[in-house]
C-alpha cells in the first residue's frame, strides 16, 4: 500500500507526518520525492547508503549533417535550441529531455547523450527502507529522479510512505500517480488554505481517495478546517500547535521515537489513515 503525503505549501508538516508514520508501521519504506530539497534523511539518518546516479538524454548535433532547416528549433516548446550563424546551439540547462528534436530532424543530424542530473540514495534506518532523490542545482526537472525512486520501492514493502514535494506541479503529479491514498496536510492560515485548495483539486483530478490532517491547530478559527467543511472533505485528525513537538522536529528527531506520547499520537493517526485507505480500496477497487 502506497500512502502519499502532500500539501500545497512547504512547511506544513509533510515530512513530520511522513517520518513519524514510517517509524510506526512495520516493514515500511519511506520515499522522499522532494528532490529539490530532500530532508527526510536528516530525521531517519539511514545507514549502508547506496548511491546511484540518474541521467537524462540531451541532444547532440552533427553539424556535418545539419542542413539548417530549424525544424528542431521550431519544435522545442522549451526553447532549448537556437540556430545562429549556421550553427545549432543546444542549451542543456533548459532542455526537458523530451527527445522531440531528434524525431523531427529530417537529416538525422541529432542524436542523444546522457547527462547526469542527480542521484537516488537507498539506505536503512532501524528496519525502515529509506529512499531519497537529489536533483542537482540548476536542472530543469526532477521527474526522472522521482520516476527512478518510485521504481526502486522494495517488493516486500508492506507500507510505503511517499513524502511529496510541495505545490501541485508536475513533480507532485509524478509522485502521487501510483499512490493508493493521499493525505493532505494543512496549516491554519489563509495562505495554507489557498495551497490546500490546489492540492485538493489535484487529488480530485487524479481520482485519488484522500483526506486531510490539520496541523498546528490553535484554539479558535481554523481557515483550513472551514475549507474542508465547505467542500465536504474528510478531516482525519488534528495535530495541535505544540512547541515540544516543534522542538523535537527542529532538532531532526522523530517524535514517535523519542516519546511515548507522540508515539501514541502518530500511531492513532497512522491507524486511521490505513483504515481509510483499506476501506477505499475495498469500496472503490
Amino acid at each position: 500500500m502506497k500512502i502519499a503525503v502532500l500539501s500545497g505549501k512547504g512547511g506544513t508538516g509533510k515530512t513530520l507526518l511522513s517520518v513519524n508514520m514510517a517509524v510506526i508501521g512495520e516493514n515500511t519504506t519511506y520515499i522522499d520525492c522532494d528532490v529539490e530539497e530532500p530532508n527526510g534523511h536528516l530525521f531517519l539518518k539511514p545507514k549502508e547508503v547506496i548511491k546511484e546516479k540518474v541521467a537524462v538524454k540531451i541532444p547532440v548535433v552533427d553539424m556535418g549533417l545539419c542542413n539548417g532547416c530549424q525544424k528542431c528549433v521550431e519544435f522545442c516548446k522549451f526553447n532549448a535550441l537556437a540556430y545562429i550563424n549556421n550553427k545549432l546551439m543546444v542549451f542543456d540547462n533548459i532542455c526537458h529531455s523530451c527527445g522531440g528534436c531528434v524525431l523531427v530532424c529530417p537529416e538525422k543530424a541529432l542524436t542523444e547523450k546522457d547527462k547526469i542530473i542527480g542521484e537516488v540514495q537507498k539506505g536503512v534506518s532501524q528496519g525502515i527502507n529509506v529512499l531519497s532523490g537529489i536533483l542537482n542545482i540548476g536542472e530543469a526537472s526532477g521527474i526522472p529522479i522521482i520516476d527512478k525512486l518510485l521504481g526502486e520501492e522494495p517488493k516486500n514493502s508492506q507500507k510505503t510512505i511517499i513524502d511529496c514535494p510541495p505545490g501541485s506541479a508536475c513533480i507532485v503529479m509524478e509522485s502521487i500517480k501510483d499512490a493508493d491514498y493521499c493525505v493532505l496536510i494543512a496549516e491554519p492560515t489563509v495562505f495554507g488554505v489557498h495551497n490546500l485548495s490546489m492540492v485538493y483539486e489535484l487529488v480530485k483530478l487524479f481520482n485519488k481517495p484522500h483526506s486531510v490532517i490539520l496541523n498546528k491547530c490553535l484554539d479558535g478559527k481554523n481557515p483550513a478546517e472551514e475549507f474542508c467543511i465547505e467542500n465536504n472533505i474528510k478531516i482525519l485528525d488534528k495535530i495541535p500547535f505544540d512547541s515540544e513537538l516543534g522542538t523535537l522536529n527542529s532538532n531532526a528527531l522523530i517524535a514517535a521515537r523519542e516519546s511515548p506520547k507522540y508515539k501514541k499520537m502518530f500511531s492513532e493517526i497512522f491507524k486511521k489513515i490505513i483504515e481509510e485507505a483499506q476501506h477505499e480500496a475495498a469500496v472503490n477497487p
Partner: protein
Amino acid sequence: MKIAIPVNDKSLENGVCQSFGRAPYFLIHDIESKENTFLNNSAALSRGGAGVKAAQMIADNEVDALLTPRCGDNAAGILKVAKIKLYKTEGDSIEDNIKAFNEGKLSPLMDIHPGLHDHGGR
C-alpha cells in the same frame, strides 16, 4: 546599421522594457534611414527559454546591436555567436537611448545575469 531595443508598446512613448526575453515588443531602429519597425516578441509568453527564443529573433533580424537594461546568459551566448553587441540602456526613454547610442555614450552591458530559468537562478 540596425539596433534593437525591448519596448513596452508599439510606440516610442511607453519606454524601454525592463525584461529582454519577455518584452512584449522589440523596436528595430535603422540608424541611417531612422526607420522604426516594431516586432511582436513571440517569446514573451513562452513556458521557458524566452531569452533563447528572443535572441534567435533578434539574430534573424540581422541587427548589429541590442540596447537593453538586462540580459541572461543563454541569450547573451547566442548574441555573442551572432556577433551582436550589447549595450546597457540608461533610463526609460527610447529616444534618449537611441540618441545616447548615436553619440557613443552607452556602455557595453557587462553584468549578464545567470538567467531566470531554474526558478530565479538558484
